[in-house]
């Protein structure tokens, strides 16, 4: 598969949120404001590229050559645990006055379904190796393109006088459903390029 097709697939046809809902958790917290959604989307994209690259290296250099693929979950979780620690320490060193905010943000960035599923799928399905970080970046771009418009929609509606019964998560779920439906139309156009990555 060509790199262009792979990137289109990762960003649109297999969009992590609007096609598969591999939602970062806590989804409503992430979408509470436009600014926050941009920051978290960029953070998760960075985490995706980092974790996918490190895990793919271990998968291709250790797990596959020694037939240890059954240990994939353990290895990925170990990579995540130490990446979380490493990047938290780096962030706290660079921004020492934001230690509490960093402590709250890092679990959202590193410990979510997107960051678990995408690296596993990429390591097993994508070759050559240097395509992996680029595809992870495309998956992150897809996440950004899904999360930011939903956050904008939510931010706009949260200032409107709406009945309490449709407050909070209801708006987020309905907005995501609408955007997913819209992407589905585009997905039909991209069907020829689609490749089941995750």
């Amino acid at each position, binding site marked *: 598969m060509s790199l262009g097709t792979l990137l289109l697939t990762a960003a649109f046809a297999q969009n992590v949120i609007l096609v598969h*809902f591999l939602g970062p*958790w806590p989804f409503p917290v992430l979408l509470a404001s436009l600014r926050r959604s941009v920051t978290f989307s960029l953070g998760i994209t960075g985490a995706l590229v980092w974790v996918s690259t490190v895990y793919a290296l271990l998968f291709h250099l250790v797990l596959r050559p020694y037939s240890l693929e059954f240990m994939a979950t353990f*290895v990925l979780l*170990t990579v995540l*645990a130490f990446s979380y620690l490493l990047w938290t320490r780096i962030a706290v060193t660079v921004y020492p006055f934001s230690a509490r905010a960093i402590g709250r943000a890092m679990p959202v960035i590193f410990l*979510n379904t997107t960051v678990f599923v995408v690296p596993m799928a990429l390591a097993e399905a994508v070759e050559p190796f240097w395509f992996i970080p680029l595809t992870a970046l495309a998956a992150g771009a897809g996440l950004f393109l899904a999360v930011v418009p939903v956050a904008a929609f939510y931010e706009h509606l949260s200032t409107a006088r709406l009945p309490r019964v449709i407050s909070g998560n209801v708006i987020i*779920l*309905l907005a995501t459903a609408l955007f997913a439906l819209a992407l589905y139309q585009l997905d039909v156009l991209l069907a020829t390029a689609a490749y089941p990555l995750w």
Partner: protein
Amino acid sequence: MGDIGRGITARNPVWVVPLALPIALFASTTWEMALLFSIGVSVTVIVTHILAIPVERWLPPDLAIVAMLITGGVVITLAERVLYVSGIVPAARPLFLFRAISVSGVMLWPALIGSRTEPVTRRLNRVIGLVLGFVLGLLGLTLLRTSLIAYGFIPAGSLPFGLVVLALGRMAANRFMEVSRERRGGKEHGE
């Protein structure tokens, strides 16, 4: 209401707190998947917490998540081996999701909001409540979607439809909470 009751009702991870949405949306289109995920996630989440609690308390506070992740990795790997030996081998995506949701959703959440000084029984009650809430929520959603699919309503299997159903469920929960709040307010006013 106790922690177990709250996990099933007010903090249900499928219908109220959008914690286990990826798996609920994915596994609720067939009964086989719903049962596989209900049993698998329940066992791995409860066993992981039982094993991780003593390790977490022994390690420095900033390493608590590391202990949880590595313990979870071992438990999920063992669960996968059991599935493999018993001839149940989920295809790639269900397998990835099984691993992912076991850790990211129902497993990590009680650990992240819990405190190290919290009694073990309280933490376990919260975990059991979440797991029961997850299983009941998933089975309810599966019943709805599979019935509609069986009657020929094909879009019931799609992601947008799943999200709309969950939004309707959340609206019902919001309404229920609003009515209970009003009743409580009315009672206090009466007194």
